[in-house]
Protein backbone atom coordinates (compact mmCIF):
# COMPACT_ATOMS: atom_id res chain seq x y z
CA UNK A 1 0.00 0.00 0.00
CA UNK A 2 1.36 3.42 -0.97
CA UNK A 3 1.91 5.95 1.78
CA UNK A 4 -0.77 8.24 0.44
CA UNK A 5 -3.25 5.35 0.24
CA UNK A 6 -2.63 4.51 3.87
CA UNK A 7 -3.25 8.18 4.75
CA UNK A 8 -6.62 7.98 3.02
CA UNK A 9 -7.44 4.77 4.90
CA UNK A 10 -6.59 6.44 8.21
CA UNK A 11 -8.58 9.57 7.34
CA UNK A 12 -11.76 7.84 6.20
CA UNK A 13 -13.08 6.68 9.61
CA UNK A 14 -12.50 10.20 10.95
CA UNK A 15 -14.05 12.31 8.24
CA UNK A 16 -17.31 10.39 8.29
CA UNK A 17 -19.67 11.69 5.67
CA UNK A 18 -17.55 14.74 4.97
CA UNK A 19 -15.79 14.39 1.67
CA UNK A 20 -12.03 14.07 1.68
CA UNK A 21 -10.51 17.35 0.57
CA UNK A 22 -7.15 18.78 -0.56
CA UNK A 23 -4.27 16.67 -1.86
CA UNK A 24 -5.92 13.46 -0.59
CA UNK A 25 -8.96 14.14 -2.76
CA UNK A 26 -6.72 14.56 -5.80
CA UNK A 27 -5.13 11.21 -4.98
CA UNK A 28 -8.48 9.48 -4.47
CA UNK A 29 -9.62 10.68 -7.90
CA UNK A 30 -6.74 8.87 -9.54
CA UNK A 31 -6.55 5.78 -7.31
CA UNK A 32 -9.06 3.01 -7.90
CA UNK A 33 -8.32 1.32 -4.59
CA UNK A 34 -8.95 4.50 -2.59
CA UNK A 35 -12.02 5.32 -4.68
CA UNK A 36 -13.41 1.91 -3.80
CA UNK A 37 -12.62 2.41 -0.15
CA UNK A 38 -14.35 5.80 -0.08
CA UNK A 39 -17.37 4.18 -1.69
CA UNK A 40 -17.44 1.35 0.88
CA UNK A 41 -17.29 3.83 3.76
CA UNK A 42 -20.04 5.89 2.17
CA UNK A 43 -22.21 2.79 1.89
CA UNK A 44 -21.49 1.94 5.51
CA UNK A 45 -22.59 5.41 6.66
CA UNK A 46 -25.76 5.13 4.59
CA UNK A 47 -26.53 1.75 6.16
CA UNK A 48 -25.92 3.12 9.65
CA UNK A 49 -28.17 6.10 8.99
CA UNK A 50 -30.88 3.82 7.66
CA UNK A 51 -30.83 1.87 10.93
CA UNK A 52 -32.73 4.75 12.51
CA UNK A 53 -35.81 3.50 10.65
CA UNK A 54 -35.20 -0.16 11.46
CA UNK A 55 -36.92 -0.84 14.79
CA UNK A 56 -36.77 -3.88 17.02
CA UNK A 57 -40.18 -4.92 18.25
CA UNK A 58 -40.47 -4.38 21.98
CA UNK A 59 -41.79 -7.30 24.06
CA UNK A 60 -45.58 -7.23 24.25
CA UNK A 61 -45.44 -7.08 28.03
CA UNK A 62 -43.35 -3.90 28.13
CA UNK A 63 -46.15 -1.32 28.28
CA UNK A 64 -48.04 -3.30 30.94
CA UNK A 65 -44.86 -3.77 32.98
CA UNK A 66 -44.13 -0.05 32.84
CA UNK A 67 -47.67 0.96 33.76
CA UNK A 68 -47.84 -1.42 36.71
CA UNK A 69 -44.51 -0.13 38.05
CA UNK A 70 -45.41 3.55 37.90
CA UNK A 71 -45.44 5.24 41.25
CA UNK A 72 -47.05 8.60 41.89
CA UNK A 73 -45.62 11.46 39.92
CA UNK A 74 -43.23 13.55 42.02
CA UNK A 75 -45.57 15.83 43.93
CA UNK A 76 -42.80 18.25 44.78
CA UNK A 77 -42.26 18.86 41.11
CA UNK A 78 -45.93 19.67 40.54
CA UNK A 79 -46.51 21.63 43.75
CA UNK A 80 -43.31 23.01 45.20
CA UNK A 81 -43.08 21.63 48.70
CA UNK A 82 -43.22 24.27 51.45
CA UNK A 83 -40.10 24.76 53.51
CA UNK A 84 -40.88 23.17 56.93
CA UNK A 85 -39.43 26.27 58.61
CA UNK A 86 -42.16 28.48 57.13
CA UNK A 87 -45.08 27.19 59.28
CA UNK A 88 -42.84 27.26 62.36
CA UNK A 89 -41.91 30.86 61.68
CA UNK A 90 -45.55 31.75 61.07
CA UNK A 91 -46.56 30.12 64.37
CA UNK A 92 -43.82 32.01 66.17
CA UNK A 93 -45.02 35.32 64.67
CA UNK A 94 -48.64 34.59 65.68
CA UNK A 95 -47.57 33.58 69.20
CA UNK A 96 -45.44 36.73 69.58
CA UNK A 97 -48.27 38.91 68.33
CA UNK A 98 -50.75 37.23 70.71
CA UNK A 99 -48.39 37.64 73.64
CA UNK A 100 -47.80 41.29 72.74
CA UNK A 101 -51.53 41.93 72.46
CA UNK A 102 -52.10 40.28 75.85
CA UNK A 103 -49.41 42.43 77.47
CA UNK A 104 -50.80 45.61 75.91
CA UNK A 105 -54.34 44.66 76.97
CA UNK A 106 -53.15 44.02 80.52
CA UNK A 107 -51.33 47.39 80.57
CA UNK A 108 -54.45 49.11 79.22
CA UNK A 109 -56.66 47.46 81.86
CA UNK A 110 -54.22 48.32 84.67
CA UNK A 111 -54.11 51.93 83.53
CA UNK A 112 -57.92 52.10 83.23
CA UNK A 113 -58.27 50.66 86.74
Amino acid sequence: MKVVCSTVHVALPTVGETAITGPLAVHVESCMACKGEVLRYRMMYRELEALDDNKHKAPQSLTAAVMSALGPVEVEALEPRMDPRVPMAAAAVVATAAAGTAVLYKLYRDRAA
Partner: protein
Amino acid sequence: MERERVEQTQPQDLVERAKLGDRDAFGELVAQHQHEVFTLAVRLMRDRDLAADVSQDAFIRAWRAMPKFRGDARFSTWMHRITVNTAWTHRSKQRRVRLDPLESLTAEPQASTLDPVRAGEAASASPRIEEALMQLTSSVRAVVVLKDVYGWSHSEIADHLDISVTAAKVRLHRGRKELRFLLDGYQDGAR
Protein backbone atom coordinates in the same frame (compact mmCIF):
# COMPACT_ATOMS: atom_id res chain seq x y z
CA MET B 1 -52.73 18.79 5.77
CA GLU B 2 -55.26 18.80 8.62
CA ARG B 3 -54.44 15.18 9.46
CA GLU B 4 -50.75 15.99 9.50
CA ARG B 5 -51.37 18.86 11.91
CA VAL B 6 -53.39 16.61 14.25
CA GLU B 7 -50.63 13.97 14.22
CA GLN B 8 -48.10 16.61 15.12
CA THR B 9 -50.05 18.21 17.95
CA GLN B 10 -51.35 15.02 19.54
CA PRO B 11 -48.04 13.88 21.10
CA GLN B 12 -47.56 17.37 22.56
CA ASP B 13 -51.00 17.16 24.12
CA LEU B 14 -50.13 13.75 25.58
CA VAL B 15 -46.90 15.17 26.98
CA GLU B 16 -48.73 18.09 28.60
CA ARG B 17 -51.27 15.73 30.19
CA ALA B 18 -48.57 13.32 31.34
CA LYS B 19 -46.71 16.23 32.94
CA LEU B 20 -49.79 16.81 35.09
CA GLY B 21 -49.77 13.19 36.23
CA ASP B 22 -52.20 11.70 33.69
CA ARG B 23 -51.26 8.00 33.60
CA ASP B 24 -53.37 7.23 30.54
CA ALA B 25 -51.60 9.91 28.56
CA PHE B 26 -48.23 8.57 29.68
CA GLY B 27 -49.34 5.03 28.80
CA GLU B 28 -50.11 6.25 25.31
CA LEU B 29 -46.64 7.81 25.09
CA VAL B 30 -45.11 4.50 26.22
CA ALA B 31 -47.07 2.62 23.57
CA GLN B 32 -45.96 5.09 20.90
CA HIS B 33 -42.28 5.13 21.83
CA GLN B 34 -41.67 1.63 23.20
CA HIS B 35 -40.19 0.21 20.00
CA GLU B 36 -37.68 3.01 19.44
CA VAL B 37 -36.64 3.02 23.11
CA PHE B 38 -36.30 -0.77 23.06
CA THR B 39 -34.33 -0.62 19.79
CA LEU B 40 -31.84 1.84 21.25
CA ALA B 41 -31.57 -0.28 24.40
CA VAL B 42 -30.88 -3.43 22.34
CA ARG B 43 -28.17 -1.62 20.42
CA LEU B 44 -26.54 -0.46 23.62
CA MET B 45 -26.98 -3.63 25.70
CA ARG B 46 -26.76 -6.26 22.93
CA ASP B 47 -29.26 -8.43 24.81
CA ARG B 48 -33.04 -8.36 24.46
CA ASP B 49 -33.75 -9.26 28.10
CA LEU B 50 -31.45 -6.56 29.42
CA ALA B 51 -32.82 -4.16 26.85
CA ALA B 52 -36.36 -4.82 28.11
CA ASP B 53 -35.22 -4.05 31.68
CA VAL B 54 -33.48 -0.89 30.53
CA SER B 55 -36.55 0.22 28.55
CA GLN B 56 -38.82 -0.35 31.53
CA ASP B 57 -36.53 1.58 33.86
CA ALA B 58 -36.13 4.36 31.33
CA PHE B 59 -39.89 4.86 31.07
CA ILE B 60 -40.25 4.80 34.87
CA ARG B 61 -37.51 7.42 35.16
CA ALA B 62 -39.22 9.47 32.49
CA TRP B 63 -42.54 9.28 34.37
CA ARG B 64 -40.89 10.52 37.56
CA ALA B 65 -39.18 13.32 35.68
CA MET B 66 -42.18 14.25 33.50
CA PRO B 67 -43.00 17.47 35.42
CA LYS B 68 -39.44 18.63 34.77
CA PHE B 69 -39.65 18.01 31.01
CA ARG B 70 -39.54 21.51 29.55
CA GLY B 71 -40.22 20.55 25.98
CA ASP B 72 -37.06 22.15 24.58
CA ALA B 73 -36.40 18.89 22.73
CA ARG B 74 -38.88 16.40 21.30
CA PHE B 75 -40.19 13.78 23.70
CA SER B 76 -38.46 11.04 21.67
CA THR B 77 -35.11 12.84 21.89
CA TRP B 78 -35.57 13.25 25.64
CA MET B 79 -36.44 9.53 25.93
CA HIS B 80 -33.29 8.63 23.99
CA ARG B 81 -31.17 10.53 26.51
CA ILE B 82 -32.89 8.86 29.44
CA THR B 83 -32.46 5.46 27.77
CA VAL B 84 -28.73 6.02 27.26
CA ASN B 85 -28.29 7.12 30.88
CA THR B 86 -30.30 4.14 32.13
CA ALA B 87 -28.39 1.70 29.94
CA TRP B 88 -25.11 3.07 31.21
CA THR B 89 -26.27 2.76 34.83
CA HIS B 90 -27.25 -0.87 34.17
CA ARG B 91 -23.92 -1.50 32.51
CA SER B 92 -21.99 -0.06 35.45
CA LYS B 93 -24.04 -2.16 37.89
CA GLN B 94 -23.41 -5.28 35.83
CA ARG B 95 -19.70 -4.62 35.77
CA ARG B 96 -19.64 -4.10 39.53
CA VAL B 97 -21.48 -7.39 40.08
CA ARG B 98 -19.46 -9.34 37.54
CA LEU B 99 -16.05 -7.99 38.31
CA ASP B 100 -15.41 -9.08 41.85
CA PRO B 101 -11.65 -9.20 42.60
CA LEU B 102 -11.23 -12.83 41.50
CA GLU B 103 -13.35 -12.59 38.40
CA SER B 104 -11.67 -9.41 37.26
CA LEU B 105 -8.41 -11.29 36.92
CA THR B 106 -9.92 -13.76 34.50
CA ALA B 107 -12.34 -11.45 32.73
CA GLU B 108 -12.07 -11.38 28.96
CA PRO B 109 -12.70 -8.48 26.63
CA GLN B 110 -16.39 -8.01 25.90
CA ALA B 111 -16.16 -8.66 22.18
CA SER B 112 -14.88 -12.17 22.73
CA THR B 113 -17.72 -13.01 25.15
CA LEU B 114 -20.34 -12.46 22.49
CA ASP B 115 -22.37 -15.57 21.89
CA PRO B 116 -23.15 -15.65 18.15
CA VAL B 117 -26.65 -16.98 18.81
CA ARG B 118 -27.43 -14.12 21.19
CA ALA B 119 -25.92 -11.65 18.77
CA GLY B 120 -28.22 -13.05 16.11
CA GLU B 121 -31.22 -12.67 18.44
CA ALA B 122 -30.24 -9.12 19.28
CA ALA B 123 -29.95 -8.33 15.63
CA SER B 124 -33.15 -10.12 14.70
CA ALA B 125 -34.82 -8.84 11.57
CA SER B 126 -31.90 -6.52 11.03
CA PRO B 127 -29.50 -6.03 8.19
CA ARG B 128 -25.89 -7.18 8.28
CA ILE B 129 -24.76 -3.78 9.56
CA GLU B 130 -26.69 -4.39 12.77
CA GLU B 131 -25.07 -7.79 13.16
CA ALA B 132 -21.67 -6.21 12.62
CA LEU B 133 -22.45 -3.52 15.20
CA MET B 134 -23.17 -6.22 17.77
CA GLN B 135 -19.60 -7.47 17.37
CA LEU B 136 -18.12 -4.21 18.66
CA THR B 137 -17.34 -3.73 22.35
CA SER B 138 -20.11 -1.93 24.19
CA SER B 139 -18.14 1.26 24.81
CA VAL B 140 -17.16 1.58 21.14
CA ARG B 141 -20.57 0.46 19.86
CA ALA B 142 -22.40 3.05 21.96
CA VAL B 143 -20.40 5.88 20.39
CA VAL B 144 -20.90 4.60 16.84
CA VAL B 145 -24.62 4.05 17.39
CA LEU B 146 -25.21 7.45 18.96
CA LYS B 147 -23.16 9.33 16.35
CA ASP B 148 -23.86 7.51 13.10
CA VAL B 149 -27.36 6.17 13.71
CA TYR B 150 -28.90 8.83 15.96
CA GLY B 151 -26.78 11.80 14.89
CA TRP B 152 -25.64 12.95 18.31
CA SER B 153 -22.77 15.42 18.55
CA HIS B 154 -19.41 14.45 20.06
CA SER B 155 -20.08 16.61 23.11
CA GLU B 156 -23.54 15.09 23.70
CA ILE B 157 -22.02 11.62 23.51
CA ALA B 158 -19.20 12.59 25.85
CA ASP B 159 -21.68 14.07 28.36
CA HIS B 160 -24.00 11.07 28.45
CA LEU B 161 -21.32 8.38 28.46
CA ASP B 162 -19.25 10.32 30.96
CA ILE B 163 -16.14 10.38 28.79
CA SER B 164 -14.08 13.18 27.24
CA VAL B 165 -14.79 14.48 23.76
CA THR B 166 -11.39 13.19 22.68
CA ALA B 167 -12.23 9.72 23.99
CA ALA B 168 -15.52 9.85 22.08
CA LYS B 169 -13.68 10.74 18.87
CA VAL B 170 -11.08 8.01 19.37
CA ARG B 171 -13.78 5.39 20.00
CA LEU B 172 -15.73 6.54 16.97
CA HIS B 173 -12.66 6.24 14.75
CA ARG B 174 -11.88 2.78 16.10
CA GLY B 175 -15.51 1.66 15.85
CA ARG B 176 -15.97 2.80 12.26
CA LYS B 177 -12.73 1.14 11.24
CA GLU B 178 -13.66 -2.14 12.91
CA LEU B 179 -17.12 -2.00 11.46
CA ARG B 180 -15.76 -1.44 7.98
CA PHE B 181 -13.57 -4.56 8.29
CA LEU B 182 -16.38 -6.60 9.82
CA LEU B 183 -18.59 -5.70 6.88
CA ASP B 184 -15.84 -6.88 4.54
CA GLY B 185 -15.97 -10.21 6.36
CA TYR B 186 -19.74 -10.43 5.84
CA GLN B 187 -19.27 -9.76 2.14
CA ASP B 188 -16.57 -12.42 1.85
CA GLY B 189 -18.83 -14.86 3.69
CA ALA B 190 -21.69 -14.15 1.34
CA ARG B 191 -19.62 -14.91 -1.73
